[in-house]
């Protein structure tokens, strides 16, 4: 690592993304020692950047400026303490940065963008990541800040060797009465359905005990956010609209597949497509990915943050995918009616269309959504 840094730059830099995690102090200590070592080896001045993006418009208590400020101060104090013991000449400077994110809720890509911007400004190439780093945003399945930084942005990335108390965070959310009751209710209902309604008293009692046990063990990892009754109801209502649409799409898909498969000359033209989906968050991404798999000639192969890799069987299905009818439907389910006005993947990719508009399906706004939309109600992502 040190050799790669040994180019002729005047200043070397290390960057540490800071979040509230149990292993933050250890990470900062490690980064400080690394920075000091490089400074000693190369006789150069080294900057140690502690970076924590904030969202000014966020609801209070989530990513407050004060909270983050406090967190950075603490981290800086740890770094300075570590350096004082080992670095009397003061060849390492500890700096902090609080880049502002445009809107709340930020998506993971924007979050990493903000960190990368700081790094680029100072030409920093080495990032030291806390293994338990937590982005203040929902992340889709299994992709973390380290994947994003190393594999996609190409940073020289190091994981701080910390002793982790347990694999906390990520999976475990704050428990609460709402979570507990929802899980208990759901498992109770499930129990009754499976058990039938034979011996009512017995079922109720055993079901109740089981439900409480399940809720006690699992209520903390079941939900991404605290369920709010009003939200649940509106989302459930939208789901009711979405499911028939999806079923219809599934039937069309299958007729198409049946035609292709049974056709003597097997008229297929498979390709891999990459596109950035207009949804984020675990459930929404999963829904879109699964819906894509189930519908006309398309199959989700890989998902990294918002980047979908989709295998499509025929050119017609490719067109359909880029028209974005499904994506619009999923946006409707999760973000509401206003979010449906969002440029389709085709417009975002600026792919030159062959004006081969296949069937419009059942959605209301089949035509190309207007390209100027994309900034409504804060849920829209960046339009590239």
């Amino acid at each position, binding site marked *: 690592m040190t050799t790669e840094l040994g180019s002729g730059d005047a200043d070397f830099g290390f960057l540490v993304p800071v979040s509230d995690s149990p292993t933050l102090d250890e990470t900062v200590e490690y980064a400080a020692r690394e920075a000091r070592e490089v400074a000693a080896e190369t006789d150069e001045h080294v900057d140690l950047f502690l970076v924590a993006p904030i969202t000014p418009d966020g609801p209070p208590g989530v990513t407050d400026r004060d909270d983050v400020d406090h967190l950075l101060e603490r981290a800086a104090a740890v770094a300075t303490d570590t350096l004082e013991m080992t670095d009397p000449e003061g060849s390492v400077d500890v700096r902090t940065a609080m880049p502002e994110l445009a809107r709340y809720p930020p998506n993971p890509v924007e979050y990493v963008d903000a960190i990368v911007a700081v790094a680029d400004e100072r030409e920093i190439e080495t990032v030291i990541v806390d293994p338990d780093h937590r982005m203040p945003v929902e992340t889709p399945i299994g992709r973390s800040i380290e994947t994003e930084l190393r594999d996609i942005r190409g940073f020289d990335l190091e994981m701080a060797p910390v002793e982790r108390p347990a694999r906390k965070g990520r999976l475990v959310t704050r428990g609460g009465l709402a979570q507990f009751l929802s899980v208990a209710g759901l498992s109770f209902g499930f129990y009754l*359905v*499976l058990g*039938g*309604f034979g011996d009512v008293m017995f079922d109720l009692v055993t079901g109740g005990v089981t439900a409480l046990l399940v809720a006690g063990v699992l209520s903390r990892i079941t939900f991404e956010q605290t369920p709010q009754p009003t939200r649940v109801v509106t989302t459930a209502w939208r789901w009711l609209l979405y499911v028939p649409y999806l079923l219809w799409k*599934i*039937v069309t*898909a*299958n007729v198409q*597949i*049946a035609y292709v*498969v*049974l056709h003597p000359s*097997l008229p*297929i*033209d*498979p*390709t*891999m497509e990459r596109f950035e989906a207009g949804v984020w968050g675990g459930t929404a991404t*999963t829904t879109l*990915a*699964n*819906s894509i*798999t*189930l*519908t006309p*000639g398309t*199959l*989700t*192969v*890989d998902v990294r943050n918002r980047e979908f*890799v989709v*295998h499509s*069987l025929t050119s017609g299905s490719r067109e359909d995918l880029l028209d974005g009818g499904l994506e619009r439907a999923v946006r409707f389910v999760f973000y509401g009616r206003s979010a449906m006005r969002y440029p389709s993947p085709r417009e975002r990719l600026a792919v030159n269309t062959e004006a081969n508009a296949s069937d419009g399906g059942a959605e209301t706004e089949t035509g190309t959504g207007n390209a100027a939309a994309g900034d409504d109600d804060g849920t829209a992502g960046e339009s590239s």
Partner: protein
Amino acid sequence: MVEYGTVAVGALVVSGLFFTFVAVVGIYRLPDLYTRTHAASKSDTLGALLALAAVGVTFGVDTATIKVALLALFMLITSPTAAHAIARAAHDQDIEPWQRGDES
């Protein structure tokens, strides 16, 4: 009433069987793993849904029908997820998709 039910069951079973059959033919005929996954995930899901619908109709209004619905919902969620997992495993191992032009 009974006749309608029987006709519906028959239609559902036959169409379900048809799509299951399409899935199998697809898995044999299509040239590579990704395209086979298409056939497997889509046709087989619909085949399963139709067959389960037939079973649901047979049971009529009953707790068993709720179970059938649960089963259908479960397959609707797991089957594309499994297909995705398999395709992604292949993709991670850098298995190249077949394209028009290369034979076999």
